[in-house]
């Protein structure tokens, strides 16, 4: 595993020791079954403790892991017949946001999500999941299409934020996100959003106005990055850990503050350890929530969505 997390080091060390014992046992024909079993249980308990008590900063680290499953991997497992649809019909196809259609449990669904790369080359193509205005406009086009064909929309949020560059400003990053907020608030079809990694600021919210908002267990959602906050507050981006502590950016914080509806459980060690596990949890959530939303007439749906937004910070 590349990108070892600091707080996982002792776990990995113990795991390596256990493997050593196993090899010793096999090679020397010494029976250590019960001893190893005890150690494995201990390791498992340690892992549980670590992952149950992750600090906000540790959550930030996990949420940003390059091994973490991205939108396209969840889509593949949840909707194997997914067809990607490209382009905003205006300026460019932005690879930092992907979208398309597929079937889930016998209904057609539109899926849209930020897309990070799995390696440096792909990350350059996908701009590390930081979309330009055309990414948000592609998303909007596909959402309007979903509305027309009465397909529910599922969005996956995973971005450090909307891109801050010349072209993005020139082509109206602010306008593109603002328009998505407004249009998503009145889109006449159910929307369910999942934060699967980083929920970075306006760039995250641009896909995040929904009837249900969920966060995976080890994800974050915030108005600014911890680095950004610490550099503003203390003129020192290095104090990001301290910033994370006061930001209330974890799934648990947001659920407590009633900003999100549900935490989707991850396997021990994070989503990348078992994507099927997470996908099944997402599927179960969709199966539980979609039918009721699809049954609502569009006025009730929109009224409820509005009230949900309306309540935050009332």
């Amino acid at each position: 595993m590349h990108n070892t997390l600091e707080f996982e080091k002792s776990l990995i060390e113990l795991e390596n020791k256990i493997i050593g014992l196993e090899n010793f046992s096999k090679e020397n024909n010494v029976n250590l079954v019960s001893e190893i079993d005890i150690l494995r249980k201990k390791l498992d308990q340690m892992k549980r403790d670590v992952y149950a008590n992750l600090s906000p900063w540790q959550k930030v680290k996990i949420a940003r892991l390059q091994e973490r499953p991205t939108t396209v991997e969840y889509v593949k497992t949840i909707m194997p017949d997914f067809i990607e649809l490209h382009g905003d019909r205006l300026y460019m196809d932005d690879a930092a946001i992907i979208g398309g259609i597929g079937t889930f449990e016998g209904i057609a669904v539109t899926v849209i999500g930020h897309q990070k790369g799995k390696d440096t080359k792909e990350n350059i193509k996908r701009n590390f999941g930081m979309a330009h205005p055309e990414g948000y406009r592609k998303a909007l086009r596909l959402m309007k299409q979903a509305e027309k064909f009465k397909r529910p929309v599922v969005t996956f949020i995973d971005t450090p934020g909307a891109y801050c560059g010349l072209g993005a400003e020139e082509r109206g990053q602010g306008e593109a996100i603002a328009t998505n907020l407004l249009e998503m608030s009145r889109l006449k079809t159910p929307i369910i959003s999942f934060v699967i990694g980083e929920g970075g600021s306006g760039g995250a919210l641009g896909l995040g106005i929904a009837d249900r908002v969920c966060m995976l267990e080890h994800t974050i959602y915030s108005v600014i990055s911890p680095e950004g906050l610490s550099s503003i507050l203390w003129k020192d981006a290095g104090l990001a850990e301290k910033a994370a502590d006061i930001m209330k950016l974890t799934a648990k914080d947001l659920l407590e503050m009633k900003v999100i509806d549900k935490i989707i459980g991850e396997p021990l060690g994070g989503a990348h350890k078992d994507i099927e596990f997470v996908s099944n949890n997402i599927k179960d959530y969709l199966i539980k929530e979609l039918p009721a939303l699809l049954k609502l007439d569009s006025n009730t749906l929109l009224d409820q969505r509005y009230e949900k937004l309306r309540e935050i910070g009332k």
Partner: protein
Amino acid sequence: MLSEIFRKKKKYATINLYEEKGYKNIDKKMNPITCTIKEEKDLNDASKIKCKNCNTYVLKEEAKDQFYTCEKCGYHFRIEARERIGLIVDEGSFIEYDQALKTIDPLNFPEYEGKIHKAEEKSGESEAVITGEGKINGASAILCVMNPNFMMGSMGCVVGEKITRAIEKAIEKRYPVIIFCASGGARMQEGIFSLMQMGKTSAALGKLSDEGLLYISVLTDPTTGGVTASFAMLGDIILAEPGALIGFAGTRVIEQTIRQKLPEGFQRAEFLKERGFVDQIVYRKDLRKMLYKILYIHTLGGGSNA
């Protein structure tokens, strides 16, 4: 209703069902191709065609098996509308509409009638589009298929009228519409009437859209001019064949305007996808499957009409 499906706990069953019914066997059902290729004029040998891209001579029979693409470089040869229909729809399922519709030469334009006659003789067709309904792996759709060899697939009143009628038929039958575009643009010989077909077809697609019906546009080589500036670009989903020339203005006109050569790949399907105007590039051999897949997903609708 979706909720009923959910209640019955047929968890994850639909996708398998769908795979079974649809994708797997689709290639086997492909129709035999019987038409000949007429666009490649510079033939030495009637049994061979030359690939414009890599200059290889390909045996026609072999090209047919490759869905009229070059085995060596993947170049997609232009094909006649009827061949296209053969590649796409279930055998025997195509019912043609308005075959008898012919132009009335509204401007009394010099030499136009003669040109029409020649095009008829050359192509065996009466106009630059064939419209009708057919089934793709069992899924019904209205199809409009343009013929790039009938007066360069130009759009006059008949093309506009046939496409408009086909769209109106789709509204009546509540079928999706698929248009295979291949056109040099508006038909100059019909003057302002040909320009107005852009408005007419677009308005018909507006009605189709208001009815919540699906329109898939398939851009093939070449899709230019008035067709690009009307129905070609109005698909809910826009597919394109690899390498297809797609643009509003012709290459020559642009080069004259900007007084420089156009960059490599400009106005090609891949360029348009990059620029956000094409949803996917689909190889001809995969087109039937892709269309079926879209129609299948589409018929599942959302919650309220499933």
